[in-house]
């Protein structure tokens, strides 16, 4: 089901969803960045803003139009909503010499993610596979995922650090959404909408709309085609699994370690990084433990800490763990790449380390290709 929406119809989306008592989370401008937050009106979208990104740099600038989605991605990803930074999985109470695990009541309120980029849709699919697709599932993630409703927006304005075209995850979302919009800015400012699920179709049916003509569909296609062309292919992922596993001891890791601060920014900004730690925090009375699941990062020494010390003492080893996991060993573990090409790790790295350059450097001087 397809239709053309006027920019004003975005307000109707927010209206319809909020009337259903859903939360609507969307990009907004805060602290000179595009961040995700709950909105009550489509006017809170970053109207007329674009982002200018580089290795280790990010700034917002005004556009000369009224585009609602005229930017790429900000520092946050939807991971914040689905795999929350800190969550209480359960409480363990001490009772009469015994123990009683108590779970919090399930959250049932629906949440619409409005403005999910194709790379982020891909990231959500990857986290689905990791966190609920195996023998054991993360209950909190599953709950939030079940409550989520994804309104994707295809990309027309990739940033310089974007490489979704290289990773095959964008700039056009192929599936994994309830509703997808493409913002068309040629002449008439309009959105070409397409439902991906029955729920998406129901929402679309409630919106003021025009039928989608072939010209509209072609215009939408042109938007993503242009974005794809603008990005080009900047990371060669052919045989990257084999390449990196054959080069665990490549000297490039010494080079990158001389720049990397092991600050963990890349793992926090990454939409697929899923590592967490379990923290059993005792309350002041001493009668209950909160079992907290918190984001963790393979860039810390504590991450690999065993009695007797951490197994990855050097920054080199931690960067290698991160890079090889994203592009190589993730495929062994979960049968998918762990990178979607959103470019956040490049933009938010304080020293501007570029994953594409590191892979290219290893590829250029590989020791062996198995």
């Amino acid at each position, binding site marked *: 089901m397809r239709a053309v929406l006027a920019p004003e119809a975005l307000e109707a989306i927010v209206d319809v969803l909020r009337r259903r008592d859903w939360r609507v989370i969307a990009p907004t401008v805060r602290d000179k960045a595009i961040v995700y937050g709950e909105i009550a009106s489509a006017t809170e979208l970053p109207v007329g803003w674009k982002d200018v990104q580089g290795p280790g740099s990010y700034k917002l600038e005004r556009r000369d139009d009224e585009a609602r989605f005229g930017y790429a991605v900000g520092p946050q990803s939807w991971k914040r909503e689905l795999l929350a930074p800190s969550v209480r999985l359960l409480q363990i109470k001490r009772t009469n*010499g015994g123990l009683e695990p108590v779970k919090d009541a399930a959250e049932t309120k629906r949440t619409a993610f409005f403005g999910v980029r194709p790379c982020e849709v891909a990231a959500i699919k990857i986290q689905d596979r990791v966190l609920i697709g195996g023998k054991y599932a993360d209950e909190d993630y599953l709950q939030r995922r079940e409550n989520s409703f994804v309104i994707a927006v295809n990309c027309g304005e990739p940033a310089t650090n974007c490489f979704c075209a290289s990773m095959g995850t964008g700039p056009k979302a192929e599936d994994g959404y309830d509703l997808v919009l493409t913002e068309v800015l040629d002449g008439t400012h309009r959105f070409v909408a397409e439902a991906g699920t029955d729920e998406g179709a129901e929402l679309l049916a409630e919106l003021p709309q025009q039928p989608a003509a072939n010209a509209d569909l072609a215009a939408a296609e042109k938007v993503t085609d242009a974005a794809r062309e603008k990005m080009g292919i900047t990371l060669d992922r052919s045989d990257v699994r084999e390449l990196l596993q054959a080069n665990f001891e490549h000297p490039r890791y010494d080079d990158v370690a001389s720049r990397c601060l092991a600050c963990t920014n890349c793992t926090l900004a990454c939409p697929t990084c899923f590592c967490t730690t379990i923290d*059993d925090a005792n309350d002041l009375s001493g009668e209950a433990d909160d*079992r907290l699941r918190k984001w963790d990062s393979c860039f810390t020494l504590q991450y690999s800490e065993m009695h007797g010390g951490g197994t990855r003492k050097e920054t080199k080893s931690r960067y290698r763990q991160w890079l090889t996991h994203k592009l190589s060993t993730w495929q062994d*573990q979960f049968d998918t790449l762990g990178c979607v090409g959103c470019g956040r790790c490049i933009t938010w790295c304080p020293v501007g380390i570029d994953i594409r350059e590191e892979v290219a450097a290893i590829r250029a001087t590989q020791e062996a290709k198995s």
Partner: protein
Amino acid sequence: MAQTLTETAGSLEAMTPVPYAVTAKRQDTYDTWTLELEPVDGAPIVPGPGQFNMLYAFGVGEVPISNAGNFETDERLVHTIRAVGSVTKALCAAEIGTVIGVRGPFGNTWPIVEAKGKDVVIVAGGIGLPPLRPAIYHVLKNRKDYGRFALLYGARTPADLLFLDEVKSWQCNYDVDLDMTVDAGDTDWKGKVGLVTKLIPPAEFDVDDARAFVVGPEIMMKFVAQELMNRDLPAESINVSLERTMRCGVGLCGHCQIGPTLICRDGACYTWDKVEKLLAVKEL
């Protein structure tokens, strides 16, 4: 997303500890205790040989500990724990009647049933014996189904050797070729002195039809595997158990990765050919 993910999602109960009471406790060495655990209510967890449980001490935290019990005859959980960190110290300090939390069983199992008809070589280093105990019990119970059975056991000092009485009873009652050595003897020690690897050249087994099961510190397993391969035992016939930090135990937290494998999910038992190259990379 419409509510469809739940239908295909994995088990949701993995993170909730089940209350177990300590019903017996024994001090094995100066820093190691064995706890026996029974569920406070409900059916007991039934692990397989090689699997581990996450043990939770209230107010302190949780650690993975191998199962060391005799599943062939007994439903109690048995865990032998060395007091080295805050959680293991708390667990070792638990009194009879103390309730702790148990999650599990997690991880894969030793291919001990698959070793039927073959010679079995067990090589244990220090506190590596408890994780091998369930596999040993299985062979002893089905002794006639297996060929020769060599049990090679090394430890730092005689005081570090676990379950000595039991180990000697196996030797007497079940036709086990027991050989032991310590790195440093004391005045009472009448046995061999030297590295556990020295026990391998004289051990009697058919390299073409044997399975080895090796547990100890990683560095010990490396040298033992090398020594076994020096005797032409294929890497595919050598089983080891790996260890890394674990938080969840069920493949969700990411901590226990070594390259392409998640130890809690794909291991902790591996054949040597699968991990030799990974363990050769420093800090992988």
